[in-house]
């Protein structure tokens, strides 16, 4: 596939009939949670769209997001989408390595300056640039350098979107999400900056680069490809929520779409794993389900091509698409319970209260005894004292 072909031409060249192309467009519309009536518009847009260059940078991550998206032994619709883009750089998937790979990246950046999509997975450690490096370049520098000419950044996975597991207490590497990193360091010069690299002579302030957060640990594969498909079709990013996530997939909470909701409403809960309630498929709120405060498409789109999702398989939702879900008070602690040890606090408080009460009581008694001895009378002022409360 040459870079100048449109997607329509590229598919035709691969022997895909127009019928096949329309089937692909229908699947893409479904992916992007768009109504079937949009299919002709998507077909028209994709036919004319040029394949954008995509650079994928993997930082402090576990590679789960890449695994989620690309099942290496069974390509899916995601594969088709990847064939519609020019994935110019990806550590796990590319064959090249070392200097050759880095040269590929720099060439792609230069040739597509201002137009390429930058996909980031993993968080960025700022505690010490040496904590995570690629080809000797720190994550901080690589992101600053590559973000300069990007049209937009897609932060894939909760690590890139919100910090994820490296960000969890105590955050030893001082990991940052893409957005947090850009806000703090976006106007700095990467250490790798050389004047003639991208044709720029001044450092580019990337603080306000558009970032779309595709959170989840990992994100549902169709969500990743849905965002890419949206960008391919419409040339811009979809509508985002207050945390920068696409509304189409993160607009509703798990709780609002969960098929076990009728049990929550009726007050029928599983009390432990594998008890009667659990076997009957009752609500998992008591087992710590974070469904009420988690926004993702798991309850409708589900996983493994619509097979199931954690709650359906009997495990409470972890809230993995939300910020700080690792520090959310415990996976198996219900949302309505305290995070600390309140019982101990209450016991200490009773002790302290008893001591204070006894002390004050003794004080009151001695005051009363004194008043009796001196035959003090209760006056109108004493009576009105209580009245002012």
């Amino acid at each position, binding site marked *: 596939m040459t870079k100048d072909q449109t997607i329509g031409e590229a598919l035709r060249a691969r022997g*895909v*009939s*127009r*019928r*096949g192309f*329309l*089937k*692909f467009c*229908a*699947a893409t*519309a*479904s992916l992007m*949670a768009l*109504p*079937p*009536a949009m*299919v002709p518009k998507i077909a028209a847009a994709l036919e004319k769209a040029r394949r954008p260059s995509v650079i994928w940078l993997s930082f402090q991550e576990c590679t789960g997001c890449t695994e989620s998206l690309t099942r290496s032994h*069974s*390509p*899916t*619709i995601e594969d*088709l989408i990847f064939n519609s883009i020019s994935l110019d750089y990806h550590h796990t998937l590319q064959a090249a390595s070392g200097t050759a790979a880095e040269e590929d990246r720099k060439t792609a950046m230069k040739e597509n300056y201002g137009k390429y999509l930058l996909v980031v997975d993993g968080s960025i450690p700022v505690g010490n640039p040496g904590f995570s490096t690629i080809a000797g370049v720190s994550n901080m520098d690589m992101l600053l350098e590559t973000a300069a000419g990007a049209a937009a950044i897609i932060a894939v996975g909760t690590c890139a979107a919100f910090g994820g597991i490296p960000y969890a207490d105590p955050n030893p590497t001082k990991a940052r999400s893409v957005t947090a990193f850009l806000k703090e360091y976006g106007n700095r010069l990467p250490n790798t900056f050389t004047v003639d690299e991208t044709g720029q002579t001044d450092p580019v302030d990337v603080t306000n680069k558009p970032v779309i957060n595709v959170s989840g640990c990992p994100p549902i594969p169709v969500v990743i490809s849905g965002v890419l498909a949206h960008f391919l079709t419409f040339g811009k990013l979809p509508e985002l929520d207050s945390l920068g996530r696409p509304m189409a997939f993160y607009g509703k909470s798990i709780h609002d*779409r969960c*098929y*076990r*909701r*009728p*049990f929550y409403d009726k007050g029928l809960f599983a009390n432990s794993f594998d008890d009667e309630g659990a*076997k*009957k*498929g*009752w609500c998992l709120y008591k087992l710590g389900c974070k469904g009420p405060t988690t926004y993702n498409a798991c*309850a*409708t*789109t589900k996983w493994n*091509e*619509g*097979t*199931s999702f954690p709650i*359906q*398989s*009997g495990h409470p939702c972890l809230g993995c698409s939300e910020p700080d879900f690792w520090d959310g008070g415990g996976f198996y602690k219900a949302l309505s319970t305290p995070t600390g040890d309140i019982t101990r606090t209450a016991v200490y408080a009773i002790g302290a209260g008893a001591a204070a009460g006894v002390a004050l009581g003794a004080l009151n008694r001695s005051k009363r005894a004194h008043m009796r001895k001196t035959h003090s009378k209760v006056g109108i002022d004493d009576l009105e004292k209580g009245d002012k409360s």
Partner: protein
Amino acid sequence: MLPHIDDACHSVPGSAATGNVIPLLHEVRHALQALLEQGAETVIDLRAIPLGPGEEERIAETLGRGEVQVSMSALGPSELIETRYPGVWMSLHRNQEGEVIGRYIEICLVPSLVRSQEADIRYGLQELDSRLQE
């Protein structure tokens, strides 16, 4: 072949339902009336509707199978059947690896993908021409 959901879906017992089955069938009914009276076609994307385990089978069972079954091979296998209610079609699309990429209920005379496409006809005409010239 259609509609077949893997047993993994049945692993969770319980009568939990989203209650979306009846409203969906009503939507189909209204679309069918619109087709009859105005010739308006409707496509319902089943992936966009939250359905509990077993609910999709209920829908498929209710709609049943009619006289026509179309098996298509374009970017992977697809099956489109007319249900026992003429004008109501159910389609299941898979990619080349056999994974499901789309499930629809179409209320129309014939699903659009079954019809031959103009670009393909043009291409085929060219091919036939060169074949006849040999």
